[in-house]
């Protein structure tokens, strides 16, 4: 039994389960679409300043979509108490965390990939700065949301009002990451400043919290 084998098996299992409950995926995809449309109505895309605010809008929209996705993935483990089956086995806790986090990352990335062209279309977005930088920003930012999101979604399994506990715990801690995502995106879109500092901040955030999550996940998982 190796970490890698268990991570792979759990990830494969999750993907298979996600695929078989297509209803949930379709609902999520539609939800993401709705979020973009609502935002476009609320913040008039024809305004001159759209390029300046788009960074913030896009990431807040991603944040909401991510919260819904994150709540879903642990919910599956609560049905039939199947999480107990994992806990009672000799399998270590970390592969479970990694497979959930990676699974969430892929899922949220798919949602972002769907929402982005819509935002570009609605806001007539065009990057005045180096557009290629948006890719590492997207990856780092998404991981920042997902790594802590997966961790706190697991923690909120041990609370009442589980679904509201996740954003409640996640949002305050995510503030530096949010500043990083939004400001770096805005910097690239407007081309008016360098996103370097913000990207460095995102890297620092990702490293610090990935390590923290890996070290403390077992404590949270076993805290019945």
């Amino acid at each position: 039994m190796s970490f890698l084998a268990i991570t792979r098996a759990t990830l494969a299992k999750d993907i298979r389960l996600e695929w078989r409950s297509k209803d949930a995926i379709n609902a999520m995809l539609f939800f993401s679409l709705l979020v973009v449309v609502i935002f476009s109505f609320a913040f008039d895309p024809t305004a001159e300043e759209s390029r300046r605010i788009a960074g913030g809008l896009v990431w807040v929209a991603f944040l909401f979509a991510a919260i819904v996705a994150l709540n879903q993935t642990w919910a599956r483990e609560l049905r039939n108490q199947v999480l107990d089956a994992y806990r009672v086995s000799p399998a270590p806790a970390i592969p479970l965390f990694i497979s959930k986090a990676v699974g969430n990352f892929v899922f949220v990335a798919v949602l972002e990939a769907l929402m982005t062209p819509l935002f570009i279309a609605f806001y007539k977005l065009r990057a005045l700065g180096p557009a290629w930088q948006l890719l590492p920003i997207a990856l780092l930012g998404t991981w920042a949301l997902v790594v802590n999101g997966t961790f706190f979604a697991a923690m909120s399994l041990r609370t009442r009002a589980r679904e509201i506990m996740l954003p409640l715990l996640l949002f305050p801690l995510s503030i530096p990451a949010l500043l990083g995502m939004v400001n770096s995106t805005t910097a690239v879109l407007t081309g008016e400043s360098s996103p370097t500092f913000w990207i460095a901040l995102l890297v620092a955030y990702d490293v610090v919290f990935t390590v923290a999550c890996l070290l403390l996940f077992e404590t949270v998982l076993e805290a019945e």
Partner: protein
Amino acid sequence: MKHGFTVLAVITAVLLSFALYTALVMAPVEQTMGNVYRIFYYHVPSAIVAFGLFFINFGASLVYLIRRNTKADMLALVCAEVGVVFCTVNLITGSIWARPVWGIWWTWDMRLTLTLVLWLIYVSYLVLRRFSTSSQTALLAAVLAIFGALDVPLVYFSIWFFRTQHPSPVMGGGGSLDPHMGYALLLNFVAFAFLAWLVCWTRYRLEVAQRAVHEAEAMQSLMEGAR
């Protein structure tokens, strides 16, 4: 112990009264702001006390995580609660001060933003403690406190850089302090620190008593079952 508490209470009462007098009457009037600035004698010390309490919470949480010591957990809980109160005082006094002086209710300056984020983190800490259904609530809370502590430097740097790009009025004033004001500020800080100590001690005793009651209630049937 009982004597110590009474002594502390008396000292605190004396200090607070004197500090209040110093702040409102003895300290000189400020040049530009007039008497409004006096709220600064509450605003600044409450921030320092709050940050200090949050720091103690971090230390206690760390101890609990490593040693599972119940006293450490109670200390963490107490410091978080009292810290949030002082932090709230700081945020509100800051707002009240800013309005007549700078015409704004809020600004994203370094200190205020950091204080707000800490306040948010610790309120979420208290909510977690209240909403947890686990028997290991203390452990979950300690984990959250660690995460919060890791977050603080990241928050600091992100706001610092943000401010260099978007300068805004700095509240709490920079610049040098008239020695009389410095004296009044120090006195108020000491008074607030004693007050925090007193409140924490009270809350700690309350928590000890509460846990003892819960334990007694939980074990009550043992007596009945043994008959």
